């Protein structure tokens, strides 16, 4: 099959997948599950067709991009237009949760913000360095794994620092983790 035709067909199959998932969302019971399963499974032939044009790795990326664009288009086309003044009770029910209303204190806000930048940076880098230092494997592989893990860990620690209602909990935990990681780093460098 001509590679480009296969690629275009793959894009069309992506769109079909999204439409099946939307059908599942609107349906109920066993039909819902069947449409949902079909919608996800259809992405396999879509990936294969796209890979015929773009190659396996690039094809996977293209499939994900296409899937996102098709889904956003389907959502937009199915937009529900409402009257200008809906009932307040309906809004409250549909809005979902609000963020925590926390005790306001300027120093707590600044302290939390500073910890979210500095303490998380120290902890994530220390843990990444310590883990790379003691992990088995070739030098370059341990290094690569370490530098890839650090940003992910750092982001998760930022979320924890900003979300936890009890600020002392992440502060103490990260301080302890940094101290342990520091000891491991020292042991690695000295041994």
């Amino acid at each position, binding site marked *: 099959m001509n590679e480009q035709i296969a690629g275009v067909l793959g894009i069309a199959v992506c769109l079909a997948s999204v439409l099946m998932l939307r059908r599942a969302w609107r349906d109920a019971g066993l039909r819902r599950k069947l449409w949902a399963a079909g919608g996800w499974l259809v992405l396999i032939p879509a990936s294969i067709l796209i890979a015929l044009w773009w190659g396996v790795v690039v094809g996977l990326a293209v499939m994900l991009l296409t899937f996102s664009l098709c889904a956003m288009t389907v959502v937009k086309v199915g937009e529900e237009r409402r009257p200008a003044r809906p009932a307040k009770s309906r809004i409250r029910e549909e809005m979902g949760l609000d963020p925590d209303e926390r005790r306001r204190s300027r120093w707590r806000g600044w302290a939390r913000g500073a910890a979210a930048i500095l303490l998380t940076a120290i902890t994530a880098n220390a843990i990444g360095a310590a883990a790379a230092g003691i992990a088995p494997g070739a030098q370059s592989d341990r290094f690569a794994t370490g530098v890839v893990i650090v940003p992910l860990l750092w*982001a998760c620690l930022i979320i924890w620092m900003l979300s936890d209602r009890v600020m002392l909990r992440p502060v103490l935990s990260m301080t302890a983790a940094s101290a342990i990681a520091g000891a491991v780093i020292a042991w690695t460098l000295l041994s």
Partner: protein
Amino acid sequence: MTDPLRPAMRKPLFSKGWVSAVLAGHSALGLAFSAAIYLICLTGSVVVFVEELERWEQPTAPKVVSVSPEVIDEGLAALREMGPKDAVRSVSATLPSAANPHFVLSARSGDRLNSGSWFADTSGQPVMKVRHDVSDFLVGLHINLHLPYGIGTVIVGLAGMALLALVISGILAHPRIIKDAFRLRSGGSARLSQADLHNRIGTWGLPFHLIMAFTAAFLGVFLIALGSVAATTYQGDMTKAFSDLTGPSARGAADAPRTDPVPPSASFIAAATEGVPGFTVQSVSIQQPGAKEQRIGIGLHDPRGLPLRESVLYDSKGNKVFGSDVAKRSFAQQVIFAIQPLHFGWFGGGFVKLAYGLLGLSMCSITATGIQIWLTRRRDKGRPAPIMERLWAATIWGQPLALTLAAIPSLATDAEGAPLLGWATGTIAAYALACVPFMQARLAAWLRAATAVALAGLALLHAAIGAAGGLSAVDPMSWAVDAALLLTAFFVARPMLKFRRATVEAPSL
């Protein structure tokens, strides 16, 4: 009877208290970094097309379809002849490709006058200096906000880290992600509409947003992570850590005498391309040309692969010193080589670039609606923030205007600072208007209209200047970019045109 659209309630995965707490963190992070993230995402959406913009900036650059190794050697020799040979640190030739039909020669020299890039003709002679002031400005704004190097890169790095945290916390704080998967409500409650738009784009754009956020965070904090991890894996030798990935540098030979001949590139190209069918030669470079320790680098590109390039380094005797061999490396190392192409969108051709541009704008939309949700919530709770509302409107619509104004002065002047001046003018004007209270309801519409007019004006002016020089001499990509600018102007103006038609058609009382 069970409502088919409301299945039986299951126990939620996360408690309401937990979700509210994560939402609070998500909200705080968004508020702190929203302006920076918006500007970075907006400029990012534009610089995906930097190759096309560069062709638009210099539409009369000589077009070269292919070059032979002898022409490459002519070009590199011409670069060395430009100034004192001892001062030349590196010379390189970027070969023409389907996306960029130009032969570009670059030199890095201790002498600033002879550093830079030139377009070369089919015989390899440099004929036109490369000047991409607007593209360089946009890229600079994206990577360091045009702030002094240490400050700008730290802010952008932290913004990338914040973006990654926002994407992850956004997923965790969205318990109705499946229940509301295809729900988009508009026209009723403003807060509900904004929340739906924010959450739907966030949900369905998740693969792209996660990859962008992770690669942004990685690139932003790479030097910090490199230093930390190299401490334990390479005993602090960052140079060794870097050279294991990119190959050894010949920087140590910077002061060596340049008495050795520079070998012709043909044999190195043949050696590099042997055994890799389908790879195209992307570049030929020489570090410390003429020195005993000079290094000849061949850059290869796999059109069906992800890495930007495969590098092979040789010494002047033809011995292979380094090969990136990405496919043979471990998974973690391959991830590192994939970071840049995944972030830039420079793989897979025009379709991927277009998808990146559209999804990049979706990230701008998420950032914009996120702050609007916070502002609307404050208004609903009786604590409106009108100044913040105007400042945010000035950010959302002032920046597209400012970026357009950055491109206009360069049509008339060669001054290097012209794009920065244009951008600063637009930014200051937008925020100045935001200081005026009576602009509350009109600011966004005015800035939007001004953006549409500026985009259309830029496209028409650029096309007119190009046409005046002779249609056949102009790169067809230049016309395509002008058309894209006009199309963008139309889409920016469209909601306002629909509103005006609705008010005109409303029956008079």
